[in-house]
């Protein structure tokens, strides 16, 4: 059986717990160590200083009664026990004879003292039947060890002090650990809760529900992830909606010409057409609708290709003004027919790196729209100019009826038409601007629309200039 794996929350909490316990136990040992070390060192230092000061009063020769009295007096006043040892037996003077006597000062101590060194003792001392911290200072007269000052304090008092510390420290530490563990649990939950919500929302999304949003509680990594998640969810929802709309639009756009074709062809087949002239009219209508369908399918295919980037652009340096002029030339008959005045201000020095056919398609689509919506005897103005060393602008302005401001952002969406009824008549597919937008984007440019209702429309395309 596979062991049940821990949740992230449990892992975080476990890590925090281990950290807390380690920290607390480490601090305990550190505290103990430093306390003992510092305190014991301090005691040793004090004893050493006292001993040396007392020894400084010894002037050589045998130990005098006066000195002994002085030490005894000091012993009464001092917190430490101070012994003056001058019994040769206690000083291990008879050591080489093996006198079987437990001297206060053993052979090793004696040789240290003879060298003039002090001796430090920590631990159990048989003679005092207790653990002590002691310092022995020699009283030397040349090489003669006349005596020694033995200063000590029982270690018990030091131990008691550490016990006092433990009494205060232990409950505090327990409380600290408890609080930290609780806080750790809350923290772990705080971190993992948004993740759990994200998990839930992701499940919902997989079921097709894009409405759910994750509440953003903080601006940390998890908070930002939640934000990004929400943005993503919104984007997916929009994309989903667009897809539905697109499908609806495509089926609608195809159904209309199809129903024309079907209706008129049925009429002809059933012999409902009386005259040849009428039949010719019907066939013309069928032909027109087939044309429309063809255009629609071509545009759809075009758009799909551009969006999927299936057919890479054939980019070459080209004079943009030339492309525009060539395209405009095709429209001369339409312009004359509608008596539209066309003004052109083109900068022939501007060179772009682009796909000539696609750019021509852009100008054609835009001009298509301009001619279509400009009334008879209207005006169209085309201008190509440099805005900086790196970019240029193509502005196409017409004097049509324009587009309401609130609808400007919707321009360029597939199948969007400002005036549904009219365009059907005019024969646009509703994909022209979407294709333009896509081509411009593939040329690293931008497109923007400006309009005031009734006063015409202005399309501004900004493109980068070719630099060698």
């Amino acid at each position, binding site marked *: 059986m596979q062991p049940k794996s821990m949740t992230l929350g449990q892992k975080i909490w476990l890590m925090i717990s281990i950290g807390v316990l380690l920290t607390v136990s480490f601090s305990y040992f550190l505290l103990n160590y430093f306390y003992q070390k510092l305190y014991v060192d301090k005691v040793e230092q004090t004893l050493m200083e006292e001993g040396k000061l007392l020894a400084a009063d010894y002037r050589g020769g045998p130990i005098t009664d006066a000195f002994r009295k002085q030490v005894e007096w000091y012993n009464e006043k001092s917190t430490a026990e101070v012994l003056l040892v001058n019994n*040769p*037996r206690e000083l291990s003077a008879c050591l*080489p004879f093996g*006198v079987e006597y437990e001297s206060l000062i053993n052979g090793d101590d004696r040789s240290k003292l*003879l060298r003039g060194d002090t001796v430090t003792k920590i631990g159990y001392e048989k003679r005092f039947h207790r653990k002590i911290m002691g310092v022995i200072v020699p009283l030397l007269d*040349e090489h003669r060890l006349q005596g020694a000052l033995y200063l000590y304090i029982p270690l018990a008092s030091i131990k008691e002090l550490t016990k006092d510390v433990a009494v205060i420290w232990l409950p505090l530490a327990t409380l600290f650990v408890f609080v930290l563990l609780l806080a750790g649990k809350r923290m772990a939950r705080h971190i993992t809760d948004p993740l759990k919500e994200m998990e839930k929302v992701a499940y919902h999304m997989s079921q097709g529900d894009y409405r759910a949003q994750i509440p953003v509680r903080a601006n940390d990594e998890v908070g930002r992830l939640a934000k990004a998640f929400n943005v993503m969810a919104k984007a997916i929802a929009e994309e989903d909606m667009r897809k539905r709309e697109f499908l609806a639009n495509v089926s609608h756009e195809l159904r209309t010409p199809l129903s024309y074709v079907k209706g008129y062809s049925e009429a002809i087949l059933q012999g409902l057409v009386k005259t040849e002239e009428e039949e010719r009219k019907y066939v013309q209508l069928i032909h027109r609708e087939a044309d429309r369908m063809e255009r629609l399918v071509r545009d759809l295919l075009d758009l799909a290709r551009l969006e999927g980037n299936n057919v890479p652009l054939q980019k070459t340096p080209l004079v943009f003004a030339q492309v525009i002029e060539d395209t405009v030339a095709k429209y001369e008959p339409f312009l004359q027919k509608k008596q539209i005045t066309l003004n052109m201000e083109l900068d022939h020095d501007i060179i772009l790196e682009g796909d000539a056919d696609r750019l021509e398609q852009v100008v054609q689509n835009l001009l298509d729209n301009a001619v279509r919506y400009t009334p008879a005897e209207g005006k169209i103005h085309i201008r190509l100019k440099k805005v900086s060393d790196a970019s240029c602008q193509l502005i196409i302005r017409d004097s049509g009826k324009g587009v309401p401001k609130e609808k400007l952002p919707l321009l360029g969406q597939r199948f969007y038409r400002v005036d549904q009824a009219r365009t059907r008549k005019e024969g646009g597919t509703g994909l022209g601007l979407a294709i333009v937008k896509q081509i411009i984007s593939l040329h690293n440019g931008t497109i923007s629309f400006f309009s005031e209702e009734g006063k015409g429309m202005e399309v501004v395309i900004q493109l980068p200039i070719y630099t060698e």
Partner: protein
Amino acid sequence: MRAICVLLAVLGILFIHGCEQETLPAVPKQMEVLISVNVNDESVTFFDIQTGRKVAEWKLRKRIKGAVLLPDDRTMLLYGNEMDRVYLYDMRTGEEKSEWKTGKGIVGALVSNKGNKVFLADERQKALRVFDLKGKEKAKIEVGNKPLTLLQNKAGTTIYVIDFHNTKAYAVDVDKRRVIRTFSVPKFAFGGLLRDGRQELWIGGHGSGSTVETNIRIYSIKTGALIKLMKAPSMPVSFVETNEGIFALSHGSNILRKWDDSGNLKASVTIGANPFIMIGANERLYIASYDSNEIYVVDQRTMKIIARWKTGKGPFQLLIRKGNDGGKENGLNRG
């Protein structure tokens, strides 16, 4: 094959050489020499007694505790209670002459004044063991369990063994090979002086427990009775009697005292650091200062320090070897 033979021969020579006793520096034979046996660095130092010049030093690396000179005045016998044998060295060549397998526990040695025996005190066998000069054990007389001090009368007929532990001194008749008298002494009694003429035995000591011995005890060798206590604080352990008087060295207080023949204190001076042993010769006293690793040379009459000679570490016993030109008097060979 030949190469192997050569190699084996070389190895054999090296092996034999390795087994050989290393030769110690020889001691010049003509001069009178003061010998210091040092227990802490296990060495023996030899001084020209006239000039104080160090004439030789032996680093023995053996746990020696003491030594005696055999009557030929060229052989030194070294012993120690943790060695399982005693070693005999020829001072003129520095070579080891022989070893006597005595077993561990030898704590004292004395050469008979008659010149034909060596007495070894054995703390393991609790006996005074008698050897001839070839190392053959002749007799064994039971004494106490730590017979540290050995004294003998001029004639060499009686040996006094003072025990360190069991508060007894034994008078041993050498010819009869038995203890003829015992008398009570304090615990940790150590060092003594036999005054044949006055029938007195002076005994020093360390004192027992934390009590420090401050007296010299004088016993009658006839009766074994305590005759007199003589103040000599603290811890009198070494004695010398010469024409100048009686000298006693107290190691606890580093004091050398001098009495006249009738026991009147004549002088006392502070000498050395924890001195254990002294020896008298040439109107001088040679005192081994244990803690400061020195020999103090003191004039017997003026009690003034004449010289200080550096020894090895822990001088614990002093001996004098007479030169070829003949010495005057000899002090005491401590057991």
